[in-house]
């Protein structure tokens, strides 16, 4: 179930740019407007755009890998919080300020993890809807 050639060409043209823009929004979240959630939504919409325009054929998208990525990033988020308790002085504290070359400490790390989690979460959510629509109620 793929869309017309106009949609497919436009998607192929736009998707790489959106991908780079989403990564930029996440990585520069502590310096400029943006952050993990916003960049994650952009990254998720790239995959959704590709899924809508080119169709959800068998083997093109692995739901297990997406779920695994979401679980791992959520788990890492909590592990970073607990590390703040072990290494720093309080739960979820920023224990990396001005260390290991990270000026903003754990903020970029948290942004990357939240972005990954949010993006993959939206993809899995809408992929379930697509599958439901294709299969029929």
């Amino acid at each position, binding site marked *: 179930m793929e869309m017309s050639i106009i949609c497919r060409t436009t998607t192929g043209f736009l998707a790489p740019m959106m991908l780079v823009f989403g990564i930029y929004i996440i990585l520069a979240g502590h310096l400029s407007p943006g952050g993990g959630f916003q960049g994650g939504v952009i990254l998720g919409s790239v995959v959704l755009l590709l899924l809508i325009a080119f169709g959800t054929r068998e083997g093109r998208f692995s739901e297990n890998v997406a779920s695994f990525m979401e679980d791992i990033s959520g788990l890492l988020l909590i592990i970073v919080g607990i590390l703040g308790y072990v290494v720093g002085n309080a739960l979820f504290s920023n224990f990396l300020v001005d260390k290991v070359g990270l000026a903003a400490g754990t903020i970029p790390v948290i942004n990357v993890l*939240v972005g990954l989690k949010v993006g993959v979460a939206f993809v899995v959510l809408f992929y379930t809807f697509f*599958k439901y629509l294709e299969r029929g109620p």
Partner: protein
Amino acid sequence: MKRMVPALLLVGTWAVFLAGLPLEYGKPVSDVATYYITHCTEDTGAINVVAAILADYRLYDTVGEATVLFTAILGVTLILGRNHHRTEQKMKQLDKLYGGSPDGDVYHL
């Protein structure tokens, strides 16, 4: 007109309540907001105050937000992710194997 009375009453009460509140916009009531704006960069090293609050001061809240998304996925996949066709096929197969119940009913609906 009679139906409008509760709505008008509600709006009137709300307006009186809002007018009576001692709100001064632009002047934060608590000292926390002022602290965040003045100490954000030296505390966390981030220039973006919003990112500093979301990912440092209030990180616990952000983790809760991630949990909300996780719960949403859990609910959607529990309700819609099941393959109902497969269940029906299995029931039909069972009917074919055992020929329904002794009364002649078939098990699948």
